[in-house]
């Protein structure tokens, strides 16, 4: 442990903030795109069929490949109406997570609307904990950014690991990473369970009332 540089932990925490940032952007864009796809699915007909196909493709697209696809397909000097629109590394990772987030939102959004129509507002409200779950999945998936040089949490760990001479030292470092990400994940799941519990009580109260 003495070999770990003193600024490793602050750098790791700063890197993890980047992971949260990426996940937040991906979820926000995913909510917008997924919401639109849910609406298109409900419209039915050709529009609905297109939406269903798109959701299927988005569900099947591997995040890591989408990330490299975006990185290589958008020129670094791309402009739109004179404005540079080439995404940064962080934005590229966030956008690569959008197909997963949008497909997830569309699937759960449709299910929530179905529950609402069937007269189960509690079932519909399950959409919220599900979105929270997706957010933490996105936080974990954003570690793919390390492959394209984004300075997120895992990139910080791997950078430090390069300096470690033995496997044992590296394992200690990896364990610190797992603990940091694990605490975050478990806290997220605890939040999700709390949300579910509150929603359950709310539904029970409204039924009694």
């Amino acid at each position: 442990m003495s070999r770990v540089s003193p600024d490793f932990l602050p750098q790791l925490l700063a890197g993890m903030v980047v992971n949260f940032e990426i996940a937040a952007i991906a979820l926000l864009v995913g909510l917008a795109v997924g919401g639109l796809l849910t609406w298109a699915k409900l419209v039915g007909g050709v529009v609905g069929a297109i939406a269903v196909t798109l959701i299927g493709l988005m569900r099947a697209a591997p995040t890591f490949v989408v990330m490299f696809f975006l990185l290589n397909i958008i020129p670094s000097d791309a402009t739109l109406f004179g404005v540079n629109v080439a995404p940064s590394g962080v934005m590229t990772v966030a956008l690569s997570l959008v197909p997963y987030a949008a497909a997830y939102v569309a699937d759960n959004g449709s299910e929530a609307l179905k529950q609402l129509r069937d007269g189960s507002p509690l079932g519909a409200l399950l959409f919220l904990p599900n979105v929270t779950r997706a957010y933490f999945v996105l936080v974990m998936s954003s570690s793919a950014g390390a492959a394209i040089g984004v300075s997120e949490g895992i990139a910080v760990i791997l950078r430090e690991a390069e300096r470690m001479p033995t496997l044992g030292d590296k394992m200690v470092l990896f364990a610190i990473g797992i603990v940091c990400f694990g605490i975050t994940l478990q806290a997220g799941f605890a939040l999700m369970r709390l949300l579910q519990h509150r929603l359950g009580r709310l539904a029970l109260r409204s039924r009694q009332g």
Partner: protein
Amino acid sequence: MSIRRGLFVFLAWLVLLVAPVVQAETPDAALTTLLTEARAAAAVPGACSQSGLDRLVRLYCTGKIRIGVREYYPLFGTREGRERLGYDVDVGRAMAERLGLTPEFTRVNAASRIPLLADDKIDLTIATMGHNAQRDSQVRFIRPHYYQSETTIVGPKSLDIKDWPDVSNRTICVTIGNGSNAQIVSHNARLMLFDEAGVLPDRLRDEVCTLAAQDDSFFAYYFTDPAFTARFDQKFGFAQVPWGVAVAQSGTDRLAKALDLISQIFHRDGEFLKIAKENHVGTGFLERQRIVWNRPDCNTASGNTDPACVLPALTAVLEPTPFAGRVAAFEAWMEQHTGIALQLPMFKTMPAWQLFKAGIINSLILVVGALAATLIFALALGAVQSSRSFVLRWPARLLIVVLQSSPVVLTLVISAAVAHALFPYSSAVAIGAAIVALGLMNGSNAGQAIAEALHSLRTERGGPPAPTTELYGRAVSRSATQIVSFLINAAKGTPIASFIGAPELLSALTDITSFASGRASTYSLLLVFYIAVVIVVVWLCGKLQIWLERRQVTA
């Protein structure tokens, strides 16, 4: 015959015998003769107004020589106000002085240095231009070469890297299109691609890149910065490229011959070496060349055409595939009929085609392996978690919590680190480590679902009976949706194996695009391939799910 007369006859005979040979063997004498003749031809009244004039004669008509140099290449060609600096600029000045002409410099860059020669806008170019066989058909290179660069690997001083075995399984930052990328790839290093070389030193400083590969002439400038030199050093060099002064191909016979001789003399007399030292550029190549051009067999007027003295041009052309022509025709047809500039570099050259084929096979092995590993780990961890033994159950639960808490990239890296500690690095080891990591990550979640299903079955049966094979089979059927979901997830996760050096398709195509064009087409094809693979896996998993659910209903 007196002794005196006899001696005179002997000396006269000796002079007649040796004189023509001496004249031919001295580059200085050959140069003097050539320049004298050209000056004389230019002095003939009306000669300068004639068309089709030899370029060297024309230069003496104007008294000036137009030299193309770079303006933004530190240490070799830069401009500060009206002052031009750098090794290339000083070589141009020295050559002009030797010719007895006044130099006039023109700015060129990598794209314009050949067209400006062909358009007769400049007389010669001295602009960090590597001499490869492809360029031999466009310009005439002056031999011997005035400099040589090589690709150098730069990294932190603390990293002990001396040769190729030390870089295998490491990531090296490179620029797209660099000819030496193919060589790096062949030594099992992974590439991180950048558009511009200018960002590499910054990426080293902010530690995004641990290692970077680029021309040593590019890094030479950064190594003049004490802060950079304190942190980084050059690990080793490879892919040497001789740099050539070049003139146009037509009408330049005499000019080229004169410059060949000057270049030869400059090497022999250490003139290039002196200029290099003054401009703080590397001198290793020039020191070696000085020894060569002082050798009696090379220090002749014809030495600059002797293969034993001059360096060959770099052969940068990759072997084409037998169907490269048809692929090119298809690309042209596509562009003509659809307007889409499709480029398929993976089908055009043998190295790219071999990487592509291996990438597809390895990707399919990875997908099948990850699916099998997920299923095996799911069944094993599901069984262990359902065990009545505390000693078996709790370690399994701990393992699942750890795997759920570790981001996918970290789990892969840990798996690769353990595998490399046990076995020497190879592609098979990287693929194996990736299969184990993906199987563990997804199998642990699926195993948890099986254990939960078993628990629910036990509860339904009114108590905790000992788990039987029949009950376990029903639990597997009950958790079919979860198992299928994690199998699909495992298939989707396989491209990330490229992060630990598994040579699957993403890795192969990244390598191909590092030395070939057509990034957009290549990565579009990659996306289509993986989506198709996942769709097939989804379809197969759907069949598995139906079979498992039917089994549950039957039971």
